[in-house]
């Protein structure tokens, strides 16, 4: 008996905590602090308990608030504003007009000019003119909170049921699987992706800033081409449940790198197979082509060379095809680069994320939510007219707005002035 009472008391205390804004404020600040720590060199922090626990609690907090407040907010938003409700608003001023005034028409006119078209109801002796706006305001914060729940849910769905990786495509070698972000893990696509052509254009005289790069792709299912598409930065391609994003690109030599060696007026050519050590003729020096670039800092095609004069750590140097004068001699040799044949490879980010729809749904819901919460404050006014002594019109101005006190008071003030002047 007593345990069940204390149990239910405990539950209600727990529920009280879960629905409290105090907890929200606390959690938001905690999350901010942990996020700060994460940017100071602990990028993995966001996937540890230190971040996920307060985030999960915030999600619970949000859900609890929704359960607690949404039904009432819905009820309030659904309840139309009536003359009876108008009579219960607090009084904001009084006025008195001569008997001969066409008071109902004048009140209607003033309200319409200052606020908007009022409604009219006769309740016993009294005529009530009333006007309200922002009835949906109570739904605003709940739209926002629901939207946040959707976004968080979308993130969870993506983490658990999403697939993310990359694929490296070379002309002539069809891609059949993606490398997942966990190192060493591959996932077969179930179809083939062929890089028909890769193109990159550079801005002229800009130090090698690419203007555009694109991959012309063909998707093959059971050996047959099913779809052709161009994949560009900011312009992804969808196929077979995956989305392909142009992420980056690189270059490989289209054959061995050709070097021109000059030693005391004697010229000779040398072939360097990519990424293999080669001894320079008649010397101890070894060289290896380790990287090729189509346009190194706007200076044109280039090869990065590793070299070692003997045993020991290699050193590095760039050879520029179009600027042989910038290449430093290597021991007794002067080096020049014969025209390079380059082949581009393209790196595509590949993704399947069923959570994105949820996230975007949340984004869409956020907008009306913020609009309602911030720009549609609930404001209500009423003017009550009644015949008084000597048949004069006695009027009362009523009104309330739980938020946005300032604009409400300013409007009410103007309205009162107009009404008090109105009969004269």
């Amino acid at each position: 008996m007593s345990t069940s009472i204390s149990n239910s008391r405990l539950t209600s205390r727990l529920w009280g905590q879960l629905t409290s804004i105090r907890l929200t404020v606390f959690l938001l600040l905690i999350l901010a602090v942990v996020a700060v720590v994460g940017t100071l060199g602990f990028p993995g922090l966001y996937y540890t308990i230190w971040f996920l626990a307060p985030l999960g609690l915030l999600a619970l907090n949000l859900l609890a608030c929704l359960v607690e407040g949404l039904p009432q907010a819905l009820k309030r938003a659904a309840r139309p504003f009536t003359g009876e409700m108008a009579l219960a608003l607090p009084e904001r001023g009084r006025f008195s007009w001569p008997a001969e005034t066409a008071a109902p028409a004048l009140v209607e006119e003033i309200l319409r000019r200052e606020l908007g078209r009022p409604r009219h109801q006769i309740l016993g002796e009294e005529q009530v003119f009333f006007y309200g706006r922002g009835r949906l305001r109570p739904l605003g914060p709940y739209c926002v909170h629901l939207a946040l729940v959707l976004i968080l849910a979308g993130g969870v769905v993506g983490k658990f049921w999403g697939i993310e990786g990359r694929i490296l495509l070379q002309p002539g070698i069809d891609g059949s699987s993606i490398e997942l972000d966990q190192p060493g893990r591959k996932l077969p696509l179930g179809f083939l992706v062929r890089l028909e052509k890769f193109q990159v254009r550079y801005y002229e005289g800009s130090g090698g800033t690419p203007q555009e790069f694109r991959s012309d792709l063909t998707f093959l299912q059971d050996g047959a081409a099913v779809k052709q598409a161009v994949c560009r930065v900011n312009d992804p391609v969808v196929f077979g449940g995956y989305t392909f994003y142009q992420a980056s690109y690189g270059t490989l030599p289209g054959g061995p790198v050709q070097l021109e060696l000059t030693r005391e007026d004697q010229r000779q050519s040398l072939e360097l197979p990519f990424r293999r050590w080669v001894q320079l003729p008649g010397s101890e020096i070894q060289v290896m082509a380790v990287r090729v670039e189509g346009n190194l800092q706007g200076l044109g095609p280039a090869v990065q060379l590793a070299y070692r004069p003997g045993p020991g750590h290699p050193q590095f140097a760039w050879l520029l095809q179009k600027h042989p004068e910038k290449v430093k001699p290597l021991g007794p040799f002067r080096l020049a680069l014969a025209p390079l044949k380059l082949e581009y490879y393209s790196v595509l980010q590949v993704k399947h994320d069923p959570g994105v729809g949820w996230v975007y749904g949340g984004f869409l819901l956020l907008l009306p939510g913020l609009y309602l919460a911030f720009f549609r404050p609930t404001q209500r006014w009423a003017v009550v007219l009644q015949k008084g002594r000597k048949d004069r019109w006695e009027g009362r101005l009523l009104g309330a707005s739980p938020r946005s006190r300032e604009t409400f008071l300013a409007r009410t003030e103007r309205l009162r002035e107009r009404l008090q002047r109105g009969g004269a």
Partner: protein
Amino acid sequence: MLSQALGAVMLLYLGVGLLFLAAGLWASASLNRLARLLFGAGLAAHTAILLARWWQSYHLASGHQPLTLFSEKLRLVVLQAPMSNFYESLVFFAWCLPFLAILTWRRDLHDYLGTVVALGACLLLAYASLGGVDSRIKPLMPALKSNWLLIHVVTCFLGYAAFTLGFGVAILYLAQERRSRPSLPPRSQLDRLLYQTTIIGFLLLTLGILTGAVWAEQAWGRYWSWDPKETWSLITWLIYATLLHARLVKGWQGRRIAWLGVLGFVAVLFTYLGVSFLLPGLHSYLT
């Protein structure tokens, strides 16, 4: 040419700031009117300079890719908005301050509040002009070529500007709190203005984060990747969400809210400057 004109606008803002200050010290309505008039003129000139740079930038870009279709030209106009490097962002940030203040504060923009806004804009322009910031127009790299660029940058910077105004208000509030001065705006007014600027900033920052996420999803296939700038914008957003909710909790009014406004602005500064200079990431093209 444009940089000289910008220097003139900077000096004009400085003058406006001093005029507002004088108007506050001598409680002079006519000085206030003059300061507001000049502030409006400065903003108009600033707007013209932005538009001229936009035109220049469009012209340079259309040299790289001659276009004939109207829709293609329109897209290039959108892409070439002058907000794609650090210098341009400073000039735009400086523009947002008087723009937002005049638009949202209207009659409240006078005396010390006017001083805060005008000097803020002047400082940003001074940094852009004299801080050794590279002011050349550079071609856009492919990732930046998106229709989302304009709306993303505009919402983010208007949001930053709203928070900057809020910071000015919060500082005035804290000054009032320590020793009440009748010449400063009353605390109730400052409290209202802080809430108002926070709402506007929160809405704009939210839009900025959303458009950034949609853009990142389109460009890289990831709406969120914990890039430092992203993370700091989230931190900023969390602090202002705290502020909005803390107002609803009993005992968290006035001074503590003002301190949250200050804290939020520190996060804004770090999001804008600190991340670019101290932490590397996707947004590093800004420097």
